[in-house]
Every structure is written in C-alpha cells, then in structure tokens.
C-alpha cells in the first residue's frame, strides 16, 4: 500500500486531529529540509512553511482555533490572538490530497444534495467525521456565497460551537455600511464573551498594521506583474488566497507577501526572462484543487502565462484604526462579490487594461451561482476588448467529473484563438 493510501486510510478509519498534527509536523520538517533552490522562488518555500506551520498551530492549539469563511475579517480573529483557518481552503487542501471523492461520498450518505457546492460539502464532512479539532467558535459572512450561512450553521451545530455571523448587505450605501459596522462591533463583543477576554486595542492596531502591510505588498506584486516579461507563474500565485484567507492581519502573512514582492522586483530589475509564455492570460474565479495539470499545461506547454488572477485582486482600502469597525465594514463591502456583477466587471476591465491581457479564462465551479451566473456578462465584457474568452465548466474539488482530455482540447482551442 502506498504512503498516500495509508494516510488516507488513517484519516478515514481512525480520524484523529493529533495524528494529523503530527503528519503536518512531518511535512513541515521535510519542507524545511528541502533546499530553497528546489522551489521556483525562495518565497515559495517560505509560503509552504508558513502554511504548514499555520495548519500545525491550528491543530496544536484547538483552544485558539477558529473556523472562518473565505472573506471573513480575519484581522479581528488575530486581534484576539486566535488562529483562523478558512474552511473553504481546508476543503481545497483536502482535494489536493486526493481526499475529496471519499469526503463527498460521505456527504451523499448524509443527504446533502450533489448540486450543493463541493467546497461546502467537503468541509462539512471534514467537520462531521472528526478530522478537525473543535474550534473556539465559527465566524462567517454572508458573502460571497449564499450557502455559507447554512454550511457554517451545520458545522457550528456538528461541533457544538457558537456561530458568529455577519450579514453582509447587498447594496453598498451608507445605511449598509452602518448596519455592518454595528454587526462587527457586536461580533467583537460576542468573541469577548466566548473567549472570556477583552479585545486589546493595541492588538487590533497591530492586526490592522500587518493587514495593511500585506495589502500594500500584494498591490505591488500585482503592479510588478504588469511587467512586459512574466515574472511568476499563475500556478504559483493562485494559491495566495490560502494565505490572505487566513493570515491577513498576522505578521507571517505580511512578511510572506513582502518576500514575494522583493524577489519579483529583483527579477524585474535583473531582466529575468525564464518564463517563455508569450500570451498573457487573466484567470477568473478559482482553479481545480485536486491533482491535475491544467495550469501547468497552459503555462509550460501551450506558451501562455497567467499574469493576473481575479482572486488576488486588492479591492479594499487601507484599514484605519481610528474607525476600526467601519473600516472593516468598508473592506467587506468593497469586495467585488458583494452586490451586483458591475464591480466584478469593472475589476475585470481594469485588469485587462493594466496587465495587457491577451485572453481570459473563467473557471465556472459547479454549484457556484456567484461565479457562473454572470458568465454571459463577463464574456460580453471581455469581447469588448476583442480578445478571446474561454469558460471552463468544472468542479474545483470533485475530481470525479473531471476529464482531462476534454479540458486540454478546450485549452488548445483557446490557444489557437490567441495565436490567430
């Protein structure tokens, strides 16, 4: 039996968060011992180390663990000295470890509809079978996805832990900002009650400081990537969301993005030109997380390179400690998933122009109405620029509906359009 099969059997037959923590510790050690030269960038090694270390911390100190939804204000969690982890990203990590088919099959036994988003189904099952330590509480927002409330309620109930929920309004007006500001204040009070601590203003200020540093570095990274020569594969930058989904507001998140920024700057100054792809692609929405070669195929065999990802857009302004709750509320409200599709389309337009995009690929995740519901309008927006648009229908987590040859034909056809 292969090591991977043994790990799988251990996870499903005797789920034990302590064993998982030891496993993560082993991977962490192995990564630490791997020479940095084996990674495309030195920052990429740092990325893995930070991610594994964060995951280990999450398992090692369950009294500090908090489950969060992807766009939740994690700065607030860090201000309490707690350890947030996005459940959507955990589902993605499970998919990358080839665990999703078994997890999803488990949810089917529990009457969860197969039409429901596989990210949600996977993390509900992860929580149900006891792969995770029981957290202090569960924090979710109503955006980007209307399923989040239901799924996080389910996780909260399964683990008998309180759900702190922020009801993100649809429209971004003054009333909406005030409504969300009030909720954030209440959320902080709820956390104080649950943790029996008091929010330390200095710690909140520090979380804002690190969040702003990370934001600033990410902005610079995006700007450097406008460079005529591609400096980074999209395959390496798409996973950034695992960091900003959990470590925005933490020293490690800020330091990591700054390291990426510095290395990319150096590459730019030195005229580094090892990425051969000539056609510049904007990638919209997420990517399949299970083992596959889609991105590698585009970037290393077809001669295109992903120079910008929608998911790594910096859409919010700096956080302001003088009005912390309103500042966090505004950050949430500025998200391009909140409200109508216009914000998303404007962001796409800006990126096409700033990054000199030759073609756009949208990955329509099965069951994600937020992403695939707007494909027609996105296509119309992209074609305004006279550049090709490819919509890939698929599932980011469930590899059972994945047929690689079908995708490769679509990608090659897209490439032929780019080269026409």
């Amino acid at each position, binding site marked *: 039996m292969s090591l991977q099969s043994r790990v799988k059997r251990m996870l499903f037959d005797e789920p034990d968060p302590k064993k998982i923590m030891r496993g993560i510790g082993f991977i962490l050690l192995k990564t630490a011992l791997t020479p940095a030269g084996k990674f495309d960038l030195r920052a990429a090694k740092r990325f893995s180390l930070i991610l594994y270390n964060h995951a280990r911390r999450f398992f090692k100190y369950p009294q500090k663990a908090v489950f969060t939804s992807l766009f939740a204000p994690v700065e607030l969690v860090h201000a309490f000295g707690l350890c947030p982890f996005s459940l959507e990203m955990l589902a993605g990590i499970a998919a990358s470890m080839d665990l999703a088919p078994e997890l999803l099959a488990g949810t089917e036994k529990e009457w969860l509809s197969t039409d429901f988003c596989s990210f949600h189904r996977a993390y509900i099952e992860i929580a149900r079978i006891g792969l995770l330590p029981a957290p202090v509480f569960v924090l979710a927002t109503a955006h980007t996805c209307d399923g989040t409330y239901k799924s996080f309620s389910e996780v909260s109930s399964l683990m008998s832990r309180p759900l702190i929920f922020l009801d993100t309004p649809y429209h971004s007006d003054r009333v909406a900002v005030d409504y969300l500001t009030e909720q954030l204040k209440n959320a902080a009070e709820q956390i104080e009650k649950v943790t029996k601590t008091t929010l330390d203003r200095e710690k909140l200020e520090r979380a804002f400081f690190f969040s702003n540093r990370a934001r600033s570095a990410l902005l610079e990274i995006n700007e450097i990537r406008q460079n005529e020569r591609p400096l980074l594969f999209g395959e390496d930058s798409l996973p950034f969301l695992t960091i900003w989904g959990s470590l925005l507001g933490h020293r490690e998140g800020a330091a990591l993005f700054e390291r990426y920024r510095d290395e990319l700057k150096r590459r730019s100054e030195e005229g580094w030109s090892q990425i051969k792809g000539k056609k510049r692609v904007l990638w919209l929405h997420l990517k399949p997380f299970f083992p596959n070669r889609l991105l590698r195929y585009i970037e290393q065999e077809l001669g295109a390179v992903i120079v910008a990802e929608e998911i790594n857009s910096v859409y919010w302004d700096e956080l302001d400690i003088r009005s912390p709750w309103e500042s966090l509320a505004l950050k949430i409200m500025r998200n391009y998933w909140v409200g109508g599709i216009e914000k998303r389309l404007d962001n796409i337009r800006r990126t096409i122009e700033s990054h000199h995009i030759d073609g756009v690929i949208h990955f329509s995740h099965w069951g994600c109405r937020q992403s695939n519901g707007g494909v027609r309008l996105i296509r119309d927006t992209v074609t305004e620029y006279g550049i*090709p648009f490819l919509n890939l229908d698929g599932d980011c987590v469930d590899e059972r509906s994945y047929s690689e040859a079908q995708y490769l034909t679509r990608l090659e056809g897209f490439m*032929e*359009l780019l080269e026409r």
Partner: protein
Amino acid sequence: MVCCERQRSEKTPTPRETGASMIFAGIDIGSVSTEMVILENTVPVCSIIMETGSNSREAADRMLAAACEKTGFSLSDFHFIVTTGYGRKTAGFSHRDVTELSCHARGAWHLNNSVRTVIDIGGQDSKVIKVGKSGKSLDFIMNDKCAAGTGRFLEVMARALEVEIEEMGKIATAAKESVKISSMCTVFAESEVVSLIAEGHPRDRIIRGLMDSIASRVVGMVHRVGLEPPLMLTGGVAKNEGVVRALEQRLGTSIQVPEEPQIVGALGAALIASEETAGKK
C-alpha cells in the same frame, strides 16, 4: 470506407521518386471513428474512414497502413502529417497535432469559403465553431462533459429501439409527429425511450423526438457562439437527415451538409499540413 483516386500500382513511381508533387495527410482520430484524408499538393486524392476501437494509437497506425496499402505510398512519401481529434497526440508519426476546432473550421471553409458557422457532432462531443473570413476559428463552444447531443447518444438509442443507426434519419423524417424526450442524460433518456415503447408510442415518433432532443442541445450552443449563416454541419451525425431537419427547423435557416461530412476534420488537418509546408518554403 475508402475513397481513393490514387490506386496502388507496382509501376507507379512514388511522389518522392518523381519529385512532381507533395503529399500531405490529415488524420482525425475520434472516439468512435478515425478518418484520413490525403492531399496531392492541395487536391484530395484519398479518404478513408475506419473504427477507432479501443486504442487510438493503434488506430492511427492501422489507418496509416491502410492508406499506404491503398495508395502505394510509404510513410516517407508524406511531406507533412497533421493529426487531430481526441487521439491526436497518440500517433507517433505525426508532425503536428491541431485541435479538431481549427481543423473543422479549416475543412468546412475549404469546401465553402462563405461558411461562418460550423456545427460538428461527433461520437463523444459536439461543438459549434465560428469561422472567420480566412477559414480560422474565431470562437467555439463545446458541449458539457456528457454524451447528450452526440453520436454516442444516438448509438445508445438505436440499440434501445432495435433499429439500425443509419435508418434513424429516414424514419424520423417520415414521422408526422414527435414524442417529447425530456431526459438530457443518455442513460435516463434510454430508460425513457424504453418506457415510451412500453406505453405504445410509435417508434418513428420516438425517433423524431430523439432528433429534436439532440437539436435542442446543439441550438443552445449555436446561439451562445452567435448564429451567423451560412452554417455547415460536419461529423458522422450530419449523415442523419432527421437531425439536420430538426436543427434547420429550430434555427430557422438551412444547413449545408458536405458530401462526406465525416472527413471534414481530417480534410482540415490535411490542409493545415499543406499550409505548414508552404509556410516553411
């Protein structure tokens, strides 16, 4: 099926020997059938259609052997070979592989320069391609990752109805009415057909209903790319006049069907092969 103007003869010198002409080939290795078109300069001289079977690499080898047998050529006589289709990367002797999207666009455009939209319904997928004035693909849509609206769908239904697949088109055309088939899924549609037979619905009306079902899938794709006549239907399913008629009715425009729609992808591949060499001259 073989259609060869250039027959093998012991005395006929090969093109390499005479140096008089250049030979190009396009091979479309699909999930159900494999087609090959051979050009002498830019003129088609031979086309062959055979079943792919379970191994696309072997299918490509068998096809090449059959072509050499029929024409008297050897592999070295071919100046350039382009493969396309599902198994395009498996042929060891290919000089280049190109997607069936570009090949169908190129092949259809060669047959009629005015064609602006190509609908290709193959064994396991269907696609709609917008064709530019120079014969290049401008945009495309492929079906979802299931067999609805493909040749495989028809195969399964023909088996359930116990009719020959080749007869289905004529039967559908003769039917006065159609029975609605609700299921998109091939497996569910098969059981729906079995139920309809058991309920006593005439076979011809069920078959016409199946043609309508395929057409409704494909018409949605045509509109997504943008309906721009003239349209050409290619691929094996184009031989089914029931599907052609159902598509024409739904689209409100006539559809051109080439004399041998199944070889259009291979023809396009052969033409791209000839252009490849011309570009290098």
